[in-house]
């Protein structure tokens, strides 16, 4: 243990007017971590998917709802046409994208993103209805660069992946006994800045546009 570390801890204890915490208190504190307290959840009455979509759109994100995974390519095609984008796409190997048949004329590469990439398509771990947020966990099948380097980030997510509040997201992680991945990205709309005269401008350093394809079909 470094000397500085010891001094800081000692100073903290001296300031709090006590020594090391007694075992009983430590046990209580550990229990507070393993059985985390529930926060106060903002209440809403809407259905989860509806709330998710509404909140996402309120922060300049866009959304298409489709019935089945088979409808995903045409939904994305429409988006590409609408914004006159190329068909060069970098994609994650996320399970949700696995069974989808992509149009033959798309140039798809499954890899982390590079500086010159313009469009990415990824899956997500969950959506959070509370704020229209998408949660993406880094991992072999989901490199984080895909979420930030391209100009357009398109996320495919199934309706049964939408949870109500952030507490539910953490609960899901704990329930599945997932260790914290290197990066958890909570993404709420496209990149933006207000650093020039407080005028909001989209596309600061991350994606200029953020699009979600919400699939009604359940797993």
């Amino acid at each position: 243990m470094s000397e500085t570390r010891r001094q800081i801890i000692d100073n903290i204890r001296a300031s709090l007017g006590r020594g090391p915490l007694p075992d009983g208190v430590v046990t209580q504190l550990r229990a507070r971590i393993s059985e985390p307290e529930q926060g106060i959840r903002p209440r809403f009455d809407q259905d989860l998917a509806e709330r998710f979509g509404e909140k996402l759109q309120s922060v300049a994100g866009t959304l298409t709802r489709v019935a089945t995974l088979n409808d995903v390519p045409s939904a994305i095609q429409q988006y590409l046409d609408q914004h006159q984008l190329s068909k060069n796409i970098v994609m994650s190997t996320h399970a949700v994208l696995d069974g989808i048949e992509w149009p033959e004329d798309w140039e798809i590469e499954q890899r982390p993103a590079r500086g010159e990439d313009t469009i990415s398509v990824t899956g997500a771990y969950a959506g959070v209805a509370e704020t229209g947020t998408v949660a993406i966990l880094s991992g072999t099948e989901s490199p984080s660069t895909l979420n930030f380097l391209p100009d357009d980030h398109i996320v495919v997510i199934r309706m049964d992946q939408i949870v109500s509040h952030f507490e539910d997201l953490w609960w899901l992680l704990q329930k599945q006994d997932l260790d914290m991945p290197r990066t958890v990205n909570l993404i709420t709309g496209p990149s933006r800045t207000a650093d020039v005269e407080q005028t909001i401008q989209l596309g600061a350093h991350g994606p200029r546009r953020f699009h979600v394809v919400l699939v009604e079909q359940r797993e």
Partner: protein
Amino acid sequence: MNLENRSAARFKQQAASALKDNNLKTALAKAKDGFVLKRLHAVEDLDEFEAIRAEARKIKDHALSHLDFYLEEFERKVKENGGHVHWAQTPEQACALVMDIVGTEAKQVLKGKSMVSEEMGLNAALEAKGHTVVETDLGEYIIQLAHEPPSHIIAPAVHKTRDQISDLFHGEHPKYGLNERLTEVPDLVNEARQVLREKFLNSDVGITGANFLIAETGSTVIVTNEGNGDLSQILPKVHIVTASIEKVVPTLNDTATLLRLLGRSATGQEMSSYTTFSTGPKRANDHDGPEEFHVVLLDNGRSKVLGSEFQDILRCIKCGACLNHCPVYGAIGGHAYGWVYSGPMGSVLTPLIIGLENSYDLPNACSLNGRCAKVCPMSIPLPDLLRQHRFKAFQRGLTDSRTKLGLKAWAYLVTRPKLYSGLTSLAAKALALLGGSRGVLRKAPLASGWTSVRDLPVPQGQTFQQQWKKASE
């Protein structure tokens, strides 16, 4: 204002020169209403705001009174995930630790926004060792071009007008091929995007701050809108987080509660675009992410603030709401405060970190109007803490001689009620006569320092005591 030599001890001179700066006035006026209105709407839209606020206060108070435990727990989890935690008592120690990690090989270092790194003077330290430092938050980038420190904890370039930013790019970007003068916001943002994109892809180390440290998971959390903090940490080989020790909270759930307040209070957003939890270096099978993850924890006097009458300030989540609602900040901006932090939270925190003797004017830069405490999501009694500082300054004889003389004269008068009421009634009448029908004074005897930049509203011709008597009759 001469920013090279600015200091918290020269607040008065700096404030005076800030008040004469027309660019500053324009920029601050543009910013203020936006911040205030956006926050108001976001808070009004959340029925549970007050309940969450009470909860958040409990969480932070709990974390602070067990800070030793939660810091050790945080460290244990970081290590478990393959990261490193380094401890520093002073900014110098923290700088030395960062330099050690950065090493001699690294050429270009990316910075995400970090106020703690400002406390450390990290950029200067890195540059002195030959590293190129690139600030990547657009606001931070702008002020780096201008060789200025941030003037606001969440909007570092809030003091700059669009014209000034336009000039800066025009002056500095020809080396990147910019030949025209860009004046529109989208063009300016895009220009910075192109130039910084190149830097993101070609740097060796990324340094970010942290809004929260989570004991449960050993994660550091950043909240941003641009995505610069993310590109700064997933592209370089090494990710260093600089954070002060009071940032630790127990759990992910606790963080959710605090996040519900942070965005709304800061920018009126329910969630900022990117909230990112970083835990250790990249895993064995990850295709991207940093190979090394380091957290440098800085105390810088905070452990001594614990348990003192100032402990409440350690609940601060650096949302900036108190700055945005402060009439003094709104008039002079952040640079005049002379050190890293400004506005109400800065006036409380700065004396605790650099010493009251080096910043004794700051607690006086306040009209005790109480707006800051009203909007503070962490219920920090900022005016009370400022009063505490004033009291301490007086006790220690740091108050300047004119104030002391004034207080003595006042004490003499209030202990002699007849004389007091006689004199105040005379003064009220005289001022009312001087003010005439406009009801304000442009100049007042002995108060030119006050009236050169503000109008003094004059009394109605009667003292408070006279009016009170009349009203209660």
